[in-house]
């Protein structure tokens, strides 16, 4: 009789253990996949503060970081044309971001989006992708990228929470591709980030 009770207890414990392990694994793998944090950026470097904020959020929520390189296509080219130069810049940046994300155990699902302007690329991205939050640096290094108007437009249009990060004036830390053009005074962190 006691043997039957012990076997029963062991079976129940095993069942609970398996359920707990499966839940843990699922949560570790990003849960049901709804926690996606979009991080649109332009150019060959990104504010490290914005990236770190997005990574912190993704890590805390067990979510996936979705860095999206916005590429502009000149008017004389078809919108769907290959962009080898832009792709090279994007690839290097995405590699650098993924490296930093990997160190923090954050899943990454990257995109490259084309548009006639950065806002147009962003608009296409909002139309086509699902995400729960947008983290965006107020201005890319060198003053290029999304303008104030673009950010206001993003606040109005994005069907998700928008977090706009404006680094302190003295905070010039960026994450740049190895072959990116970092501003004067930038230095590498790890193999692909600059501070």
């Amino acid at each position, binding site marked *: 009789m006691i043997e039957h009770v012990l076997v029963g207890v062991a079976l129940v414990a095993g069942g609970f253990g398996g359920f707990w392990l499966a839940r843990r694994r699922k949560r570790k793998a990003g849960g049901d996949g709804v926690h996606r944090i979009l991080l649109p950026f332009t150019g060959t470097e990104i504010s490290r503060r914005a990236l770190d904020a997005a990574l912190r959020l993704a890590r805390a929520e067990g979510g996936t970081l979705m860095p999206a390189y916005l590429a502009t296509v000149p008017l*004389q080219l078809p919108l769907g044309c290959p962009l080898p130069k832009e*792709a090279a810049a*994007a690839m290097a940046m*995405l*590699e650098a971001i993924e*490296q930093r994300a*990997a160190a923090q155990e954050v899943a990454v699902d990257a995109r490259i989006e084309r548009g006639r302007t950065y806002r147009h690329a962003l608009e296409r991205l909002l139309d*086509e992708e699902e995400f729960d939050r947008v983290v965006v640096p107020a201005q890319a290094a060198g003053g290029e990228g999304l303008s104030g108007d673009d950010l206001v437009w993003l606040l109005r249009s994005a069907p998700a929470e928008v977090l706009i990060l404006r680094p302190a004036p003295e905070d010039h830390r960026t994450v740049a591709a190895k072959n990116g053009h970092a501003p004067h005074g930038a230095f590498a962190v790890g193999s692909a980030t600059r501070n």
Partner: protein
Amino acid sequence: MAGRLKVFLGMAAGVGKTYRMLQEGQAELVAGRDVVIGYLEPHDRPETSEQARGLEVVPRREVEARGAVTAEMDLPALISRDPELALIDELAHTNPPGLEHVKRYEDIAEALAAGIDVFSTVNVQHLESLNDQVAELTGVRVRETVPDSVLGDADEIVLIDLTPEALIGRLREGKIYAASNIDAALNNFFKIENLAALREVSLRQVAEDVERRVRLGGEELEQVGTRGEERIAAEVPKAVGERLLALVRPQASSQRLVRRAWRSAQRLGTDLDLLWVKRPGESIEGECERQVTALRRLASVLGATFLIEENDDVVAGAARVVRERGSTYIMVGESPPARGLARLREPLPQRLMRATPPGVDVRIVAHRKGGRS
């Protein structure tokens, strides 16, 4: 019998296409052929004009269009002159309204149809399929384009190659443009990076043409040739060009593999195919659909081709595509640790190597450690 077309292809103005065309025309003349200049654009380059000396010139005709008078090739006069060989510069030229044809390559087609052999010249950025790519690489777009089929149908293509440094040297020496235009040219189109990119495109274009011709030759040889000739024809394409195939799955982690594969393809100067071997009946919906769309769009930005092959067996599906696309290089992602009976199975790279034609390399791209993607 239709004439034969030989095209002198260059990466930019000033590499010496016209000069070489005239040089070969002179050689044909010395060999006893009846050679005329149908149209020559010497661009006020004394060396070019000197090379044309002694060759008969079919006089140009004056054409008035939009208030301007231009001297154009006289196609009817050329055809009635009926030489054995005509040298016709500037294949991509657009004729003014009112002439027999809109484009010069159409004039040339008529001359060929009349049995006249033609030598002509063109720069690589004028090729229709490369126009966008060259515009993206250099920021300069040309309006006069030639269908790729014109080059494809040519009997012979001669690449006139020059290093970017040598071409810029020629430009500085005033051998390409007048002194007043040199600075503008150096600041715009004639930059080392532009010329290096154009040179690469030209070399690749000719390599692909050679490969295509050898393949076609191989097909012909297989029908009528000897066993030895077949073997040579079958082996040559492999020596000419690489083609890279990356085995992907609709997962975010495949993007790293795609990035690695694209970088390798760029270094090898080759085309990239992305292949997902999908189980028959497997539905593409939800997250899978999202990832398939992402891969398709990424392939489009990179200029790669995204393929979906239905097969129960990844290896068999991949091997079929490798044969069909002529891939020489396969990249696969690191497999997750095998469990249970799967441990007894031969690893994917080894199975791929056995299933694909000899000489196809297989490379494994490791997952990034630490991440969950």
